[in-house]
């Protein structure tokens, strides 16, 4: 016997969490795109999506965020910090790859400088993951040594029942236990079996890839130019990626008054590494693509002991020219280290 949450109680849960002062989020399809968005009732959720087009990272690291207001006066410069939000949030129906992405980025945002905007949101959010029973041609969590029911980054794990009428509930953290406590009387005991996980075939041998990437001789390999020839250098893959985290500071306003903002930036853009002198150390798209791969599978794990990829497949799914991490790593894993 385990405890289950039945689907027809979900709306009660949303109401209960909201009443307790939480803002509730989940997968929502709006117009032509889907994302994790705030809802007022469970009817707004689209739990049938394989995964939303946009990743959960934007609820923690939005595409643009005001940081400081400045005002330069004759005698003084006034500044005023924007405070990171402290609202309590329940994020329901997060895919395991998205939840893993948050856990992957935690060490990055807390390394030399503790990013309050990230951590205040992290500490006030409960991630309720639902294991995947469906996948598509682009899903590749298993190639990254994760799984369709990976609990990484999750506070509560829900496993869909075989009969499709609810989920088995497993609390994983204190935050998760707290959120489940608020709905405890809505859960019931049941022996109903859980549905099998999605079948996600392994697409490449990650260890072989990492070995090749770590060999300094391969940095200048002609492979990079060949594999990235069709890359048009947009920000689609990095902006949709749950682990890509680069940003830029921009002052908006005039010389005297304005707002300093933190905006998403992308290593795919030529401007990303452009120096004031006009020199660009990553002057070609192949150098930029190499950076994206090296960063995710060589430099990031070198520093934080984890790959900066959770295998969600968005980079390949949405690439305008059908490129992506998968094809590149598949090709690398066949090369001699």
């Amino acid at each position, binding site marked *: 016997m385990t405890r289950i949450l039945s689907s027809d109680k979900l709306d009660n849960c949303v109401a209960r969490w909201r009443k307790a002062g939480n803002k509730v989020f989940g997968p929502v399809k709006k117009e032509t795109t889907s994302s994790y968005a705030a809802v007022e009732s469970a009817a707004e959720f689209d739990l049938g999506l394989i995964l939303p087009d946009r990743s959960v990272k934007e609820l923690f690291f939005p595409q643009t965020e005001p940081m400081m207001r400045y005002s330069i006066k004759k005698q003084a410069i006034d500044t005023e910090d924007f405070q990171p939000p402290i609202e309590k949030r329940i994020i329901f129906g997060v895919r395991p790859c998205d939840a893993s992405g948050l856990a992957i980025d935690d060490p990055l945002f807390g390394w030399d400088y503790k990013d309050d905007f990230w951590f205040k949101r992290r500490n006030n959010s409960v991630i309720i993951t639902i294991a995947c029973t469906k996948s598509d041609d682009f899903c590749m969590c298993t190639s990254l040594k994760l799984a369709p029911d990976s609990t990484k980054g999750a506070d509560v794990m829900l496993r869909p029942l075989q009969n499709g009428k609810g989920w088995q509930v497993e609390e994983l953290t204190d935050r998760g236990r707290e959120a489940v406590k608020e709905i405890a009387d809505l859960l019931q005991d049941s022996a109903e079996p859980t549905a099998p996980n999605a079948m996600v075939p392994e697409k490449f041998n990650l260890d072989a890839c990492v070995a090749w990437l770590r060999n300094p001789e391969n940095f200048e390999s002609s492979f990079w130019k060949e594999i990235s020839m069709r890359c048009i250098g*947009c*920000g689609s893959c990095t902006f*949709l990626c749950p682990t890509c985290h680069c940003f830029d500071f921009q002052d908006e306003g005039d010389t005297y008054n304005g707002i300093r903002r933190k905006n998403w930036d992308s290593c795919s853009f030529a401007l990303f590494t452009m120096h004031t002198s006009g020199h660009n150390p990553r002057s070609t798209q192949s150098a930029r693509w190499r950076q994206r791969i090296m960063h995710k599978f060589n430099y990031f794990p070198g520093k934080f002991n984890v790959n900066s990829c959770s295998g969600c497949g968005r980079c390949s799914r949405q690439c*305008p020219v059908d490129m992506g991490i998968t094809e590149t790593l598949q090709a690398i894993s066949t090369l001699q280290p």
Partner: protein
Amino acid sequence: MSTQETYKTKVKELLSSGKVKMVIGYKAGTTADRRRPHFMRTPEEVDQLVLDSACITNLSGYLLSEGLLSDGKEIAVFLKPDGIRSINILAAEAQLQSNQVVVLGFDINGSEISALQGERASDFQALTSSSNEARLHKQQHPESARLEQMTPAERFAYWEDAFSRCIKCYACRQACPMCYCRRCIVDNNQPQWVNTSSHTLGNFEWNIVRAFHLAGRCVECGNCGRACPVNIPLGLLNMKMTDEVLQSFNHYPGVSETQEPVLASFKKNDSETFIL
């Protein structure tokens, strides 16, 4: 022989004779309905060439990849009528010389494809003129008609909602053969003409600036709309701009390479006293 096989033979000849240094075409993609750009430099690479009704991407933008045309050697590229028109515009705007480009023309009709005869963009003048004629009499897209019926406030709300989804990934720009500026106006930061932030105002600025820069130049290939990861209906903007330019200036972009760029030419007898 199928069109694809005929073209395979032709492409192999072009490469083995040394007439062109590269052929840009299509090959199979990750899923059955996807095609990827394919760059062929040797006859062996031609075996992977695919040419069918899923080959919808306008490939002409790749010709402007940095340094590709600078050695003066010829390049062949698979192009539909919209792509041929972009070659004319790129030539008219001095971005390439059309005698460096071998056009491998094809058209898609439903699930069928057919070859278009000709070698240089100028050989397709009859085709581009007839597509000009067809565009003049084209029935309005139902979604455009719906937008036209709206009040300005409703239309504003429609685009505000659409642009609020933009993430400023610039995939629309990067995918567009006409967006070739090495430094786009939004990348200019001294001064910063356009907000780089992706808030609704910044997104509005970006999408409207781009629509204006494409007015009278867009060939309606659809690359931008397909590239947009959040599926903003960019095609509707392009249709509107194309309609306006057709009605106001009787200008259909890319008919020939001697056609004057509509927003970059000036006539002394212009009825307007003010130029934007």
